[in-house]
């Protein structure tokens, strides 16, 4: 784990805590109860600030002792260390998911789902068109059967136009 990134994230959390605390001060104790609306948020802000402050303190105090920016990892490990990692692909997957949610009410699940599945699988490196189409169509049929058929959930099925 890059200690600079860890430090940056801790600073972001510290800033968030301060802003959250400031927003919580606007909820005065106007009700007739001991704690009031703003007490717990303020306490939470203090906890987050202390925690992130501790992380910042530990990183800075060990900065000179550590000879490299890479420090023992606290992060969740990847599935298999033998395969390369792409830090961009997850963000692209989020983009595909957002696109799917935008498309869904407009063009329905029957059109948007196969498109999203194929886009997602292409991102994962699947190139064979037959596999892409068969998974996309099969998954769409399964989702339609489960949600619209069995669970009788009202979903937009077809394009609205």
């Amino acid at each position, binding site marked *: *784990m890059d200690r600079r*990134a*860890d430090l940056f*994230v801790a600073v972001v*959390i510290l800033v968030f805590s301060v802003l*959250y605390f400031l*927003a919580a001060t606007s*909820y005065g104790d106007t*009700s007739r*109860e*001991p*704690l009031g*609306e703003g007490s*717990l*948020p303020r306490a*939470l*802000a203090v*906890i*987050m600030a202390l*925690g*992130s402050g*501790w*992380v910042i303190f530990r990183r800075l105090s060990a900065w000179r002792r550590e000879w*490299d920016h*890479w*420090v023992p*990892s*606290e*992060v*969740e490990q*990847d*599935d*298999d*260390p033998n*395969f*390369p*990692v*792409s*830090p961009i692909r*997850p963000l692209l*997957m*989020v983009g595909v*998911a*957002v696109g799917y*949610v935008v498309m*869904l009410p407009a063009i329905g699940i029957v059109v948007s*789902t196969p498109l999203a599945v194929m886009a*997602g*699988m292409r991102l*994962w490196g*699947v190139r064979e068109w037959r*596999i892409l189409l068969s*998974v996309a169509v099969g*998954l769409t049929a399964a*989702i339609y059967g489960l*949600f619209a058929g069995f*669970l*009788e959930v*009202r*979903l937009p099925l077809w394009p609205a136009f």
Partner: protein
Amino acid sequence: MDSLIGVAVNGVLAAIHPLPLALISLGVIIGIIVGALPGLSALTAMAVLTPITFGMVPTNAVFFFMGIIVGGQFGNSLPAVLIGTPGTPASIMSAVEGYEFQKRGEGGKALGLSLVSSTVGQLLSGIGFVLLVIPLADFSVQFLFPEIFALSVLGLTTAATLAGRNPVKGIVAAAFGIALTTIGPDPVTSRPRFSFGYLQLEVGLDIVSMIVGILVVSELIHAARQSFNWPAGQRATGRILPTLSELKKASGPMGLGTVIGFFIGALPGAGASVAHFVAYGQAKLFSRHPERFGKGSMEGFVAGDAANNASSGGELIPTLGLGIPGGPGMVLVLVVLLIHGITPGPGLLQSAPGVLEATVGGLLVGTVAMFVFGYLSIRPAVYLFSVSRPAVYVGALVISLIGIYSLRSSSFDVYVSLIAGTMGYFMRRYGYPVAPTALALILGGLIEENLRRGLVMTFGSFTVFFTRPAVVVILALSGVVLLQPAVTFYLRKRRRTTAPAAPHESIDVSADHGIRRKQR
């Protein structure tokens, strides 16, 4: 006691008639299938199928729902073990431990262990319900706001210190989760907080969307970092049911998890999530190999799983004994009973003994049905989830998003889920565990409401937290859990400074996996 044992016997005899047995079996199958789908849970199936039960006699409706609840408990284990996505916070640590089994090609074995611990947990909790419903119902009445607050704190501190490698970051993650629950109407005054003028924030963020986002969507996004397919060997399951020696090793943590799950499940407001983490934490405390926890520990896996399942029987106690739902699933059980004109409570045994019989019979017979159908589902599930990694993860993401959308037909909920998922992804990348955040999303509202109402009850006096015995014991346990990592770290440091020098080590810096130490 004799009448309750008679209730249990009558319940089982009633459950093995053709129609009730068919309804229980159908419920179990639905529960397993829906529970196995990422982003969905048995609760979804129950909510959607509630109208179908209106045409049934009350006992058959109860048989059906008990089947779904029992089946869903095992169904949640399938995605937890096979792709590391827990369906609910009550199976987070099962996912952490179980997925390590799957990575070693032992997914079938893990599911077999889960099946056995689920069966044992459910059966023992069903028997526990029969034997202890009256005394525990009396005891749980004494669990007031301060006790529920203390229990929630215990669950959160356990999750914060056990999940992840840095307890301080775990506490920050838990606090952040509670902070998210403060968006929306205040639990006491109902005035909106942190809405900044947006109507959708004034009503609060949907908790289910956020939980699915932070647990499921974040894992699915995280998995996209690597694009590879699982080896063909992963599709083979080998032996499913554990051997006798494995059962012997598992019996201790399984028993511990069952007891903890049952008693915590019996307390209103606690539920399976708290029971799961507390059981996991206690199993680690008593384990001879605590260093294996988080890396595919069988003890941690079965303890958490047994607690999750045993809590079903425990949750029935306040639900039927007091008319207070013991967990989210029990809310729907109560709804069905009330619609049929049955009021759960202390007089249920006299007023509607058939319902009590159906509950116990449904739980016990449903557990046997869960074992049978669960066993049959393991090999197909392992094969299906192992055929193509891209297809499984992309499909799981799409199903999760549709599942969220289907709750309230709201795109906003899906966006909330995606934002929570993206935040969860970055939390995982920088060492902030998502488990305490997810648990905090469930408990955050309870913590604040019970704390503030408790203080109103005591006219603002905090002495209730030092004078009520149960509160003192639970908060003391929370303190032990919170301080344990620091004490362990200090003791280990002392041992290292007094131990003889280790062989010469070299350091290999890996670009993505931190520092690896190699011994020459």
